[in-house]
């Protein structure tokens, strides 16, 4: 091409268009933990590979950050995760030698219009597509068993704590009763009957137990936030470790109050059975 013809082409706008910019890397989401641990930022372009050696790496752009769904079974493991479009993931990890690799997935989530018909749906699908492994997500699995066992363990620990607390309470009530021996003697000497004093002891036990139980619940509510914050920081998770629900508070009070009353009655029993003169050491 001569210079003249080149100039002509330029003047008429017939020059070859410039090369198009490279396509924007596909978008991905990364977990908050991955973003922090690798010091990434939104909009960064990162390379991912499906191979530990880093071969066949592809570039992706961080479009967003997400908080992984907390999983108690993975406590202590930092969720360094990324979410890719399925087509991008298949292109990244598929074995080039296996033509079917880009068409296979590990699992398919199905949301039924009528969840109550899950069993019938699974039976039907098993007949239509043999070889599929179907599992109802609402069905119990090993992780459920783990938490049932942990629940039993917590219950056992609570039982031991209640026994220790009851002994402590009984010791306190015995000392309280000892302190009030002279008072009880005077009350008996001025004519109050055993039954009347017994009711007073019961009432006192009830008040002390109620006050103690309510204080305990209040303390648990106050500590709940601190406890959760500490363990959420410790494990870098959004899991809630302690939750004081009305049902739990009611359960604690329903155990503590009868125990408190029982402790005050047991501690006072010896005192109530003695005669007024014996109490007055006469």
């Amino acid at each position: 091409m001569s210079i003249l013809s080149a100039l002509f082409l330029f003047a008429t706008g017939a020059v070859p268009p410039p090369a198009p910019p490279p396509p924007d890397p596909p978008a991905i989401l990364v977990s908050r933990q991955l973003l922090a641990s690798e010091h990434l930022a939104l909009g960064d372009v990162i390379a991912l590979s499906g191979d530990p050696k880093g071969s066949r790496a592809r570039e992706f752009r961080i479009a967003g950050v997400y908080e992984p769904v907390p999983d108690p079974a993975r406590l202590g493991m930092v969720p360094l995760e990324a979410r890719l479009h399925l087509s991008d993931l298949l292109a990244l990890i598929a074995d080039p030698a296996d033509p079917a690799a880009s068409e296979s997935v590990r699992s398919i989530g199905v949301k039924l219009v009528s969840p109550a018909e899950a069993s019938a749906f699974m039976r039907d699908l098993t007949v239509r597509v043999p070889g599929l492994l179907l599992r109802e997500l609402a069905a119990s699995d090993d992780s459920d068993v783990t938490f049932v066992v942990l629940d039993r363990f917590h219950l056992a620990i609570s039982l031991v704590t209640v026994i220790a607390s009851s002994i402590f309470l009984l010791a306190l009530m015995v000392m309280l009763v000892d302190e009030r021996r002279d008072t009880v003697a005077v009350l008996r000497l001025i004519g109050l009957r055993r039954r009347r004093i017994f009711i007073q002891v019961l009432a006192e036990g009830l008040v002390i137990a109620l006050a103690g139980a309510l204080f305990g619940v209040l303390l648990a509510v106050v500590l709940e936030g601190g406890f959760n914050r500490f363990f959420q920081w410790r494990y870098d998770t959004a899991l809630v470790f302690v939750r004081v629900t009305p049902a739990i508070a009611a359960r604690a009070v329903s155990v503590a109050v009868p125990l408190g009353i029982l402790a005050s009655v047991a501690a006072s029993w010896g005192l109530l059975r003695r005669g007024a003169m014996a109490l007055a050491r006469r």
Partner: protein
Amino acid sequence: MSAKVWAFALRSLARQPGRAILGILGVAAVGALLFDMLLLSRGLLVSFRALLDSAGFDVRVMAADAPALARPRIAEAETAAAAIRALPDVDEVASLRLGNAIVTGPDGGTHDIFFIGADAQTRRRPWILLEGRDLGASDTGGPPPLVVNRRLATTLRLRPGSELTLRGDCARGVASAAPPVRFRVAGFAAFPFDDPKAMTAAARLADFGRTCGLDEKSDADLFLVASREGRGPEAAVRAIRALRLDLHAFSNEEIVARFQQVGFSYFRQISAVLSTITLFFGFLLITVLLTVSVNQRFAEIAALRALGFTRRRVVLDVLAQAVLLVGAGGVLSLPLGLALARWLESILHAMPEIPAAMHFFAFEPRALATHALLLALTAVLAALYPMRLVSRLPIAATLRSEMVT
């Protein structure tokens, strides 16, 4: 403290036996829980370490630093194992293939079993033979040998010499096209990582490959490596890492350290929290008991001081009472704690996939020492306030006040 101080403190406690017994029982309950929490804090680590060490292999080599189910296999395993075996820091290498198999029971029902293919050339085995014979390296004619765990033997009513047929299911979800293989039970073995419900069988690598339809010299899931005596596992790990950059070698120590970071850390946290609470509880109990006791004995203590007891002597009396209460409770807490640990262990062992040989509560002398130290510290701290009350008691004013009241 002299014997007189102890005797005097003992008499002081014996004067109010109900109170003293309740104090001791309270400390025993608190001490038992504390002891259990100390056992729990390291129980899994101690028993996990014991399980890893039980077979005599101190290094594990795998293809990737990933959980077992997601981990790729070691390719060209035979060559890799031979290269590792040739290292001067390595004594022995055993290749392992892990899979599943299906076996039909005497009732006609099928059972899924955990199926292991192991190198039969090694002196060490990743299992403990309990009865019968181990897998031999050479063929003796007849069906190939198989070692099975007790649970499988009981379920299928097997005895050494019994025969059974396995259908391999080893390709992680892909059914094997290999024909079923008839095996002869050579012996019964205990597999350290079996959970109580596991049915496990192990065969030679070649027989495993035949059952699963795999090439005899194909991949391996894991190499168990025993370091040479005197060299240590760290040297073996370094040598393997230098030899094969693509393989991941870990000493038992490193695996335990990793387990400590992620596995069951919940139990360490709960033991730390409960230990703190129980200690505080014990401290509160003893402080209240001694303080009330001292308050009730002000007149007596003032009288003793007036009679010539030194301040140091009455303070030591309070300290001795605290030590006696905590000491007696502490001693009682040990059998209580052990019984409680057995109960809690039985609850926690219902968790799925926990090896039967793994224990949440494992006894260590250091746990006993820590328990004694923490209780002693609690006794001293709990006695501080009542000791202060006694040491600052004004003799004349107290006596006058007691006379007036």
